[in-house]
């Protein structure tokens, strides 16, 4: 009927409060709602079968724009979007080529590069590690960027990378995350970067228990274990959602890359990790960020050719 019921957001399987990717998306929506005193519709799917149904439901209810967090939405959105030409869709982390879809992707490799440098700097053992969630190109992009950063800061560093699994349940397996972390610690790692959704909770927990440093992902996770989380690789999904909501049905379709330059990715610094990040570390990282923005430094993007020069999967 043309009447807009306001924006809507649909979270991915990890759920709204995964303290990570989805939560970050939620925070962006929440921020928009608080600032504008408006409401938004939201939905957490619990099975893949619900995806298309959920999109159609919101579209039919007149929600506009409809933001979906996560690459898994691509197929469903590709099918559904054509049927609702008047509705604007935003997909985060994946590209869907349709006239009414805005695709937002992040340069995770750049952000990961920065925290990789910090990890190598902070490490006493010269061994740093990475725990990925589901083994997909996107997560390999994180890992590859991280390894490049670590080696850039310390060419002697060793980077261990493990993936939790090959299914979506890998996003939500803190037990395994914890075990992987212990295994990495045994191989000498004293800084671990978790890009694993809910699984990361287990990684950070174990790192805290074992007295090594950890690095959070997506949202700022420094607060989870004050003084024990070195930093968090910020992927400003919240900003992407916020901006989409703010644009309303005027969302501009097309391809949108969020990198270091436009504040899409970065590292977190707050009262919880202030003591862990030395001035020179910060200096070094900021310099790297500047040269990435300036184009002087290119971080290899795994997804560009599905290879990583410094890491074997």
């Amino acid at each position: 009927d043309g009447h807009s019921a306001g924006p809507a957001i649909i979270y991915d399987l990890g759920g709204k409060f995964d303290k990570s990717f989805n939560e970050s998306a939620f925070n962006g929506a929440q921020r928009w709602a608080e600032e504008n005193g408006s409401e938004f519709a939201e939905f957490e799917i619990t099975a893949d079968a619900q995806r298309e149904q959920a999109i159609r439901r919101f579209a039919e209810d007149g929600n506009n724009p409809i933001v979906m967090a996560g690459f898994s939405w691509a197929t469903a959105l590709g099918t559904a979007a054509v049927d609702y030409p008047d509705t604007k869709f935003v997909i985060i982390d994946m590209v869907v080529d349709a006239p009414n879809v805005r695709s937002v992707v992040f340069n995770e490799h750049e952000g990961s590069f920065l925290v990789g440098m910090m990890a190598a700097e902070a490490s006493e053992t010269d061994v740093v590690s990475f725990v990925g969630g589901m083994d997909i190109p996107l997560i390999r992009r994180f890992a590859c960027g991280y390894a490049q950063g670590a080696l850039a800061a310390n060419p002697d560093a060793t980077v261990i990378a493990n993936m939790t699994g090959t299914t979506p349940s890998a996003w939500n397996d803190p037990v395994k995350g914890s075990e992987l972390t212990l295994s990495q610690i045994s191989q000498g790692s004293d800084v671990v970067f978790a890009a694993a959704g809910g699984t990361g909770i287990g990684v950070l927990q174990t790192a805290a228990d074992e007295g090594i440093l950890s690095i959070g992902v997506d949202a700022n996770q420094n607060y989870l274990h004050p003084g024990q989380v070195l930093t968090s690789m910020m992927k400003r999904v919240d900003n992407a959602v916020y901006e989409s909501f703010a644009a309303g049905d005027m969302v501009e379709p097309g391809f949108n890359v969020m990198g270091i330059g436009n504040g899409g990715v970065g590292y977190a610094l707050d009262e919880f990790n202030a003591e862990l990040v030395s001035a020179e570390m910060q200096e070094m990282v900021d310099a790297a960020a500047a040269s990435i923005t300036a184009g002087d430094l290119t971080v290899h993007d795994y997804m560009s050719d599905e290879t990583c020069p410094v890491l074997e999967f």
Partner: protein
Amino acid sequence: MDAMPKWADVVLVPVVSLLLAAIISAIVFVAVGQNPWDALKLMAYGAVGTSDFLGYTLFYATNFIFTGLAVAVAFHASLFNIGGEGQVLLGGLGAAIVCLYVPLPHWSLALIAGATAAAIFGALWVVIPAYLQARRGSHIVITTIMFNFMASGLLIFFLSGPMKPIGEMQVATAVFPAATHLPSLHDVAQMFGSEMFGRSPVNISIFLALIACVGVWALIWHTRLGYEIRSFGKSESAAKYAGISAVNITMVALLISGGLAGLMAVNNTMGINSPQLVDNAAGGAGFIGIAVALMGRNHPVGIVIAALLFGALYQGGAELSAATSIPVQIVVVIQALVIMFTGALDEMVRAPIEKLFLRSQRAGE
């Protein structure tokens, strides 16, 4: 004399069981702060409120007919095939291989080829459990559970490795070629100028399901094989006396069961809007089949009715969770209650009803 007339066994007992399940479900709703009456209305609307919703309900019901039949055929041989889940996944693998790697010019050919492959793969997946049950007496329940896990592992291996398109993130095959996409009921309706079923994925596999129902009915009650399956299921010692081979019947009944479960893959891979095989393609349908068969008293007609009910529950539950803060897992809870009351607590419902009939009989004498 039987203590109870047949209609009481076939209708009254399941209805009372369902009512009990509904009452407990209502309590669960209250416990999570939802008015059960509102929830029921929402679910009913979600299940059949629009022709789209109805289409989804039928889509899910199609799945459950296949798995319900699968469980029922095995049940007739007194075998508990709890491995529907895995057989569905393998059926999907079969269908996907055919659709992706065999050039099929038309959906009708794709349907035949896909269905055959799905059935064969589903049946093959139960060969080892069946063989072990028949030959070595290994309990079919445990072996098929293990095969469910292994099926999931195998499927993920294929979907995250050999069959995954480069650059894709989803654990899924590529989308099948358009020629293999089965016509949806919407397409069928459009031929008659109707917009029925809208974008819902319900498709012509539902007819395949109904044909399977007729087939199972004929098999079980009108063929020698069915006669032997039922004999074996009712009395193994008598079957032995009659010269019915326990090994053969165990194998054959389970293979048919596995094939039927595998067939479900036609619906949920080739029939959906973006036809492809995803990692959790079974979505619990293998287990729901148990409840469907139990409630349907292992008869195709009962199975169709029970499948529709579960389809409505599934779809209605999804809509309920979309409209409220209740997670879709509420469906799983209701499903559990239905299985509990119609299956395990059958005697609790049956005994008092039987007693009532017995008393009225005695009084009548």
